[in-house]
């Protein structure tokens, strides 16, 4: 037995002498210093302003851009009273500054508003995003824009859960290590975002975010030349059940602390002519009317009720800066009697 042992166990190849691994040990020290240094530097506002927007773990820059702008907005205004939420349509349809100005003109009261709409936000995930906004920012009003395209099956499958990340879940009470790290460690947040920065599409998205105003409004200056068909809407269109379920979960967030208001996103009339007014009413609007119910929940219909100028459209469903000015002012007049009345 001992001979077998001696025959098979003869360590003669490895000839390592001590000390060994000093370079590796020193590099660990440097790693800690680099992470620690990042932790300090990235918290300095002037340095952070030069950094690309962090993604907060969802691989897209818009969430990080809106959070950064909202945090800056709150630092300047002290608080935020109302948050506009929804998809890219709300992004470009609502100018919070115009809304606030008109609200003050109507009521004499100040209201601080921010546009926290996010591209490709689907109704099925709106409630989880709203939950995180309520937990983090405690707005008194959430104003949600709903549109025919977003409630279709086609849109649902491409826009689901982009914004449900470990971080948003952490902020709403579901602990995860990554969520905790993104929330508390600037080094982790920016190092994690560095992975995405190399992607061409991500960098192009960053470029588009340069249009955002300090109140989160996507200031689009394109004027549509030809009004084509609505995206995600065809003759087979039906409101997707998951979209309705998401809408109802969102409505249930209404409370004494947070008021829920919903408005219909306007659609260019010409885009509806091929489908017909009845199509829009039967397939979409009547479904919304049936499902938007609840205490303290107000639904404002807009189609054919607000005169968007001819040059106010970016495309059949999105307004540009000129259309947004008219629409934001009108919407403020509709909500003037109900916002901040408690």
């Amino acid at each position, binding site marked *: 037995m001992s001979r077998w042992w001696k025959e098979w166990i*003869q360590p003669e*190849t490895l000839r390592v002498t001590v000390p*060994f691994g000093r*370079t*590796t040990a020193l590099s660990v020290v440097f790693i800690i210093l*680099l992470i620690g240094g990042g932790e300090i530097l990235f918290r300095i506002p002037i340095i952070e302003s030069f950094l690309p927007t962090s993604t907060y773990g969802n691989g897209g820059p818009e969430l990080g851009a809106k959070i950064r702008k909202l945090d800056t907005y709150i630092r300047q205004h002290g608080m935020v009273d109302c948050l506009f939420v929804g998809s890219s349509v709300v992004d470009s349809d609502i100018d919070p500054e115009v809304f606030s100005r008109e609200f003050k003109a109507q009521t004499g009261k100040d209201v601080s508003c921010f546009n926290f709409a996010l591209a490709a936000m689907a109704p099925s995930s709106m409630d989880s995003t709203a939950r995180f906004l309520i937990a983090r920012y405690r707005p008194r009003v959430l104003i949600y824009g709903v549109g025919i395209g977003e409630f279709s099956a086609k849109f649902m499958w491409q826009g689901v859960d982009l914004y449900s990340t470990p971080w948003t879940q952490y902020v709403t009470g579901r602990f995860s290590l990554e969520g905790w790290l993104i929330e508390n460690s600037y080094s982790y947040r920016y190092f994690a975002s560095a992975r995405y*920065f190399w992607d061409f599409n991500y960098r192009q998205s960053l470029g588009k975010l340069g249009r955002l105003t300090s109140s989160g409004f996507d200031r689009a200056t394109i004027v549509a030349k030809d009004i084509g068909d609505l995206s995600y809407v065809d003759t087979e269109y039906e409101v997707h059940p998951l979209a309705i379920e998401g809408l109802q979960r969102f409505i249930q967030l209404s409370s004494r602390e947070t008021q829920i208001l919903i408005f219909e996103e306007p659609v260019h009339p010409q885009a509806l002519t091929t489908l017909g007014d009845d199509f829009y009413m039967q397939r979409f609007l009547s479904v919304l009317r049936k499902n938007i119910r609840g205490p303290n929940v107000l639904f404002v219909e807009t189609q054919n009720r607000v005169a968007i100028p001819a040059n106010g459209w970016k495309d059949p469903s999105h307004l540009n800066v000129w259309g947004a000015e008219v629409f934001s002012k009108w919407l403020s007049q509709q909500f003037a009697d109900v916002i901040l009345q408690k």
Partner: protein
Amino acid sequence: MEIISWQFGAFMLVVLFIYYVLPHSKQNLWLLLASYCFYFTHEKWLVVLLIGITFITFFVARQIVAGHSHNLKWLWLGLGLNLVALITFKLFSEDYGVQFARFLSVPLSTKVLLPLGLAFYILQAISYLLDVYHQRLAASTSLMNFALYMSYFPKLVSGPIERARVFLPKLNRPRRVTNETIACSLTLILIGLFRKIVIADLLPYMLPKNVVWSGINSPYKTLEVILWIVVYAFMLYNDFAGYTSIVRGVSSLFGIDLSMNFQQPFFARSLSEFWGCWHSSFTQWLRDYIYFPLSRWLLRRSNGSRNLINTIVPPLVTMVASGLWHAFTLNMVVWGVIHGVYLVGERLLEAWHPMPPQNEQPKLQQVISVLVVFSLVTFAWVPFAINILSGDVGALSFWQAIVIPHNGFTAKWYLVVMLPMMISLWLDWNQFQSHSETFFLAWSRPRQSFALAVAVLMLVVIGTTNKSSVFVYQGF
């Protein structure tokens, strides 16, 4: 298991631990078992093909030296069997393979997958047989050592293509792994990982996905398409050089050195020098087993006098063979022809207007030569890239995207792509200046440690999201 994977890391730890504990006389057996196990995780029962090729080659070599009068016939048998295996798999792994099989009345419903490393270990088998036949090498008497030469797992996937006369003696010698060996090995592995993960895998993400595939109606500018080709050149280089660096580092931990495959090819001042620096183990194989024999045969036919045929045919045939070794496709033949024409042109130019040796030329001339060679080589990657990325790519639309001018260039989107390419050039420049791949080891300890820290952080940040793609040359 992929070489860049946690599974391979765990595999290495186990193999190394047992390897270090075993006596030298048992280490080769252990490495052989580990190599077959590694191959089995990739190819399952195709390990039988590897073992079969090994046995046949070993047996044939023994017959060649057995003093029989038919030893040339044994050589042809060995070469023939190896080439048939290679050509068969190459043919039936292409898109046209199924139609070709039908033409031959072979029942084949889908194209076959090329066995991992086939093209590499077949070349090793062929070189072994030819070296034994020409008495450059004694036929191995140890089947185990020969099997290890054929299947040694660090080089099994994509080379380097080792010569038996260099590699087999290493298996017979006792191995020592010291502090310096480990430092060198880990540095090579780190450089390889950095080239692959931080440079090669990242570069394609930095450009729009369909820059070159849009054809005649491309919204992209000609300069954007040209930039993509340059990026492709850097991506391919760092992918393959990264692989080679990793496997050389891995092998070094066993005390077995593998050949260098890359020596800063982008600094080559001539096409000949480029091929001496790019995939040099394969270039040397081509030179020794195709180019030189063909040149000698042509010279004998022309009674020793140099003529145009002697100048044109050897490099052209060699490079076409190189193209076909990569894949049996028209794109690869075109790639080979382009490089063959380059080499012929260089030879004719040299004959017409002899130049002083490159090291004696003025620096400016050398720099211009480097840029010219880089441009020519990069242009030649186009058919190579079409072949690799063929999927839904149309070759014609590729050329249209380049040739039909679309003016204008939005530079700001592409500035960031310069960063990995600059890092690649910086690595190459330091290796070139110091004549050492592991030039970091000559730095002071604090500088080494800082560089290691930065490299590790970059690997973690970038590697944890981008799933590392398979090495390009794994597909050959």
